[in-house]
């Protein structure tokens, strides 16, 4: 965290100023058009990097195993994350529980490149997310719609991912959340300036962020898709729906041939608009993860509702 008491996490040191908003959001800019892969071992991290992942998410268990294991899901062990950091040169992300700012402090202290304040872990605070502004490390947070995205950004999130439903291999929730987000953005764009105050109140977000969205026609930070991608076609679907990149959790290392699936999804994200390339990368693939239909899942088992 900040050592100079400033409220925005920026610190003057050495060659310049660290922890600035541009430095925090800038790393997400560099990840665009890329695939961020969940990994649970250093070996998997090496496979992900070799396949062309732009970053890895270091975890003790992928979401489908978190579901199966039950119990309380917490930040991964520090040694595990450090082992993965030593293995790869690409950025390493790790998850903290919603509201668990001490887990986030620990992740920052060990030099994680991005903290995912994630609904996949068991929430630590049922009212508050982490105040992310005082940190030097940037945060990515999940959302299901525009209001949720802007609330996270107002708390300091420097990157957003639509939540989807992690660990299912079912893309339906990812699609629902991406469409809802863009529907919200279109609505803001069509709303007269005079009515943005009421709209901000309805969305439960600061007026200034709504004005930003209206001016830019997009979120003020990069937005990836997460939660349900299991095939190259799923990844390209989310890109065509407006994602700037894709998180893949269980979809790679729960498939029959993870290295091939990882490489195919990377290629699909680069050429997401070209059906010839998508067909080519889909040829010869082995089984995708088996998955679990969200429609048949009790609401209590769904993770996306955690944190709003």
């Amino acid at each position, binding site marked *: 965290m900040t050592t100079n008491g400033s409220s925005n996490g920026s610190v003057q040191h050495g060659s310049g100023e660290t922890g600035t908003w541009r430095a925090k959001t800038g790393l997400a800019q560099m990840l665009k058009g890329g695939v961020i892969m969940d990994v649970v071992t250093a070996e998997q991290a090496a496979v992900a990097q070799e396949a062309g992942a732009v970053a890895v998410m270091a975890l003790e268990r992928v979401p489908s195993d978190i579901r199966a294991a039950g119990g309380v899901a917490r930040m991964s062990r520090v040694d595990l994350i450090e082992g993965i950091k030593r293995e790869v040169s690409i950025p390493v992300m790790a998850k903290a529980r919603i509201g668990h700012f001490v887990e986030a402090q620990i992740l920052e202290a060990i030099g994680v490149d991005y903290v995912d304040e994630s609904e996949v872990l068991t929430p630590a605070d049922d009212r508050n997310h982490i105040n992310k502004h005082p940190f030097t490390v940037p945060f990515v947070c999940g959302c299901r719609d525009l209001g949720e995205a802007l609330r996270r950004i107002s708390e300091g999130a420097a990157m957003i991912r639509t939540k989807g439903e992690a660990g299912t291999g079912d893309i339906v929730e990812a699609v629902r959340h991406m469409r809802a987000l863009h529907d919200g953005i279109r609505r803001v764009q069509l709303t007269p300036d005079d009515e943005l105050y009421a709209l901000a109140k309805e969305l439960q977000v600061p007026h200034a962020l709504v004005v930003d969205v209206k001016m830019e026609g997009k979120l003020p930070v990069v937005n990836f898709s997460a939660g349900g991608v299991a095939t190259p076609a799923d990844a390209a679907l989310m890109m065509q729906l407006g994602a700037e990149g894709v998180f893949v959790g269980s979809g790679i290392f729960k498939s029959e041939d993870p290295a091939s699936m990882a490489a195919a999804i*990377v290629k699909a994200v680069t050429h997401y608009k070209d059906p010839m390339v998508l067909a080519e990368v889909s040829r010869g693939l082995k089984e995708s993860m088996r998955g679990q239909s969200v429609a048949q899942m009790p609401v209590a088992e769904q993770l996306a509702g955690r944190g709003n």
Partner: protein
Amino acid sequence: MPVARSEQRLIGVLALQGDFAEHLDALRAAGARAIEVRTLAHLEQVDGLVIPGGESTTIARLLLIFDLMEPLRRRIEDGMPVWGTCAGAILLATDVPGLDRPPIAVMPMSVERNAFGPQTASFEADLDIAGLEGAPLRAVFIRAPVITSVGDGVEVLARLEDGRIVAARSGRLLATSFHPELTPDHRMHALFVGMVRQAVPAQAAASDDGRARGEVA
């Protein structure tokens, strides 16, 4: 046929991964015509190329997978101006410790990847850059590389206060370890547009018949 075609060169931005959209915006703001380069056909159309920030291992891999590495190297050897920012600078360097094989390897310099440490060490600083008029440039360094040494014919354009090299030029090749595309100051983009204009005669620029630019270089 676009009216401006005979007056303006076409600059490509390698769009396999990374912040290519920001480069396209900045190049257009600096007065250039700019397109995404994802395929060989795109590459053959452009008079100059920007290799954006992103993950160097990812971009290098995608260049190989999609059979762009050799054609790109050939265009560069034939004289096409190229500017690499951050990951792009790494891809241009002939020596990159930790990589068994430097990716494009056309600019004689050594580059240390991720030279400042993890993301918490990413920073902004004001830089004086040789060839840029006016105030220092606000430079954004994201898990940035530094140029640890340069070979013959490579001119150092900018250093940090501690002396480390963060911008260099060798003929028609330009490398910066920071991201001018992330700030509203487009002077570096204007500098590169000028390099392309100088390298490619106006009447030869941006023909879309797909022939290589080498013959006019």
